């Protein structure tokens, strides 16, 4: 609860110091970078929530630079052919255009690579939410047999053999020792700087541009209740999208887990239930952000849909009934019943979430 300190308390704290003439103890809740690394203040774009940085991994200039090198480092895969950036490609908003990922051994995963965008605000990671922090998430792909397939001791030994990396780890973390923990911290720092806030929609929110009539109509449909009022009490012929891809904080995801009606059984991929063991979590996946969604085809956790038109047809159908389908899906009342012109408007709105400045940002490109 470090955040709950109100200015009032701070004021009193000051007063206490004045009255008691106490010495200036360092505040134990604020972690200074352990080395001489240069603190980096992350700018929070307008209408975005605050970003919570873990106290034991403050962002620094040196840490972010190192993280970027490591993100693009092919030596972190067994045969030195694959880096994080092989599956998370800039032009696809750091996702991948193939249905599921293929690791260096040729082994196919079961899931579609996720877009890396505004990761500093995510609260659970992966489609099934199995990682709680970004640092924890980064530990997984390097040793994973279906991905980079390089055990951590080998990975850190390779880096330690390169004097340039040793110097960079020292600059970032104040130690010559290279550990998995250090690698994950540096990459997490880099990922936190990968902020997208310059889509047409962002600029519209900031009052800098106009949406076209069609885009605005799509925005309204996105935020309106679904269904024909004759069939669904309270239907507004909308898209119902905002319930899960809500606009608050401008991330277009609630970071919660829902079953949006893709399947009636879940043996292929139980989703959240694979993590919690709860049958009622079967088929529930983390709502993905819709930022840059026009760049991240194919869609859904297993990449089963090729186009956004297909995605809209899915929602329009109401989805497949099952024990865990979300109550917001209109599966029992004939779907959303969107007309072709409404679907076109919704599609136009989704395209306003595309941020090309983000995908072209040289600060995120391969530095090697």
């Amino acid at each position, binding site marked *: 609860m470090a955040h709950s300190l109100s200015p009032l308390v701070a004021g009193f704290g000051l007063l206490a110091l004045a009255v008691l003439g106490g010495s200036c103890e360092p505040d134990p809740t604020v972690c200074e970078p352990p080395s001489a690394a240069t603190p980096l203040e992350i700018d929070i774009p307008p*209408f975005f929530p605050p970003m919570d940085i873990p106290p034991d991994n403050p962002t620094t200039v040196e840490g972010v630079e190192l993280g970027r090198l490591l993100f693009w480092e092919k030596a972190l895969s067994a045969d030195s052919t694959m880096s994080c950036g092989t599956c998370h490609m800039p032009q696809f908003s750091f996702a991948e255009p193939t249905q599921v990922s293929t690791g260096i051994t040729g082994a196919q995963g079961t899931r579609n690579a996720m877009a890396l965008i505004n990761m500093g605000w995510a609260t659970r990671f992966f489609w099934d939410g199995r990682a709680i922090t970004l640092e924890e998430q980064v530990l997984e792909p390097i040793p994973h047999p279906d991905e980079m397939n390089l055990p951590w001791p080998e990975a850190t030994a390779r880096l330690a053999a390169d004097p340039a990396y040793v110097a960079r780890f020292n600059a970032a973390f104040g130690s010559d020792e290279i550990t998995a923990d250090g690698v994950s911290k540096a990459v997490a720092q880099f990922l936190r700087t990968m902020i997208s806030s310059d889509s047409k929609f962002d600029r519209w929110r900031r009052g800098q541009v106009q949406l076209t009539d069609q885009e605005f109509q799509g925005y309204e449909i996105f935020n309106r209740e679904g269904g024909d009022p004759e069939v669904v009490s309270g239907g507004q012929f909308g898209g119902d999208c905002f319930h899960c891809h809500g606009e608050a904080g401008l991330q277009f995801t609630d970071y919660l887990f829902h079953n949006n009606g893709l399947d009636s059984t879940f043996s292929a991929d139980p989703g959240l239930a694979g993590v919690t063991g709860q049958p009622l979590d079967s088929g529930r996946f983390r709502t993905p952000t819709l930022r840059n969604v026009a760049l991240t085809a194919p869609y859904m956790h297993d990449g089963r849909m090729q186009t956004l038109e297909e995605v809209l047809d899915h929602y329009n159908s109401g989805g497949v009934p099952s024990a865990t389908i979300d109550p917001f899906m209109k599966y029992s009342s004939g779907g959303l019943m969107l007309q072709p012109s409404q679907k076109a408007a919704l599609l136009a709105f989704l395209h306003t979430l595309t941020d090309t400045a983000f995908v072209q940002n040289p600060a995120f490109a391969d530095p090697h």
Partner: protein
Amino acid sequence: MAHRFLHSPTLSLVTLALGVLVLGSCTPAPEDQPPGTITLTADFSFGGDSVLVGRTAVDHNGNHLRLETFALYLGGIELLTDTGAIRLSDAERWDAGDDNRWSYSVVPGTYEGFRVHLGVPAEFNTDTDPTIWPNDHPLGVAGSAGLFWSWNTGYIFSKFDGKADTTGGNDFTHPYAYHIGGDANLIEVRLDDPWTVDPCSRHGFSLAGDILQFLSAADAPIDPAIDNVTHTGDNPDLAARYVTGQRATVTLTRNP
């Protein structure tokens, strides 16, 4: 999430120091005495059992309801005094399966009563932007996940949804969802009952009520087989009936 700032140890220390400096050593003012503690609990039930995701219960119409979500805001939590109210907390979030217990430090003295709202007070609800709060605050973007949808309508005060078996055939496919928001649907639950908080004393306030009874108010019954979905704005009439049921059901007691 239990402790919101009221009397931090630093603050008490400073107040004490100031007290000694300014007032000298006569009878200490109430603020200079050790505080009492108030703990608020909310023991909602679902068909007589504790509220758990996945649990089923039979409503007054004979529908079997399986619960998927029950969450609500307790907002504007205040001690009532003869001159007004002292805010203990702007908002707390009740979620099925959580501890749902919050404690506050209170300056010793006599109070006229206590109140809490089911929902978020208007000053934080209308045209609100959740990014102004820390992320894990109940009203922040992460803290309000699932209970905040858009900028204009504000927070979802309470959310009860799942699937019903309306045929008795163990076929839980019929969705129901009561999602209540909007300033007009804010419910005040209050206890006007003067009592004294002594230094270091402990007091509890408990909210209670069975969710199924929200659907069976005498003047506003709801049959989830027919009236199954409201997100408030889309079906204000059904939302109003649910609110009537909530108002008639939820009780507030003090102990001791």
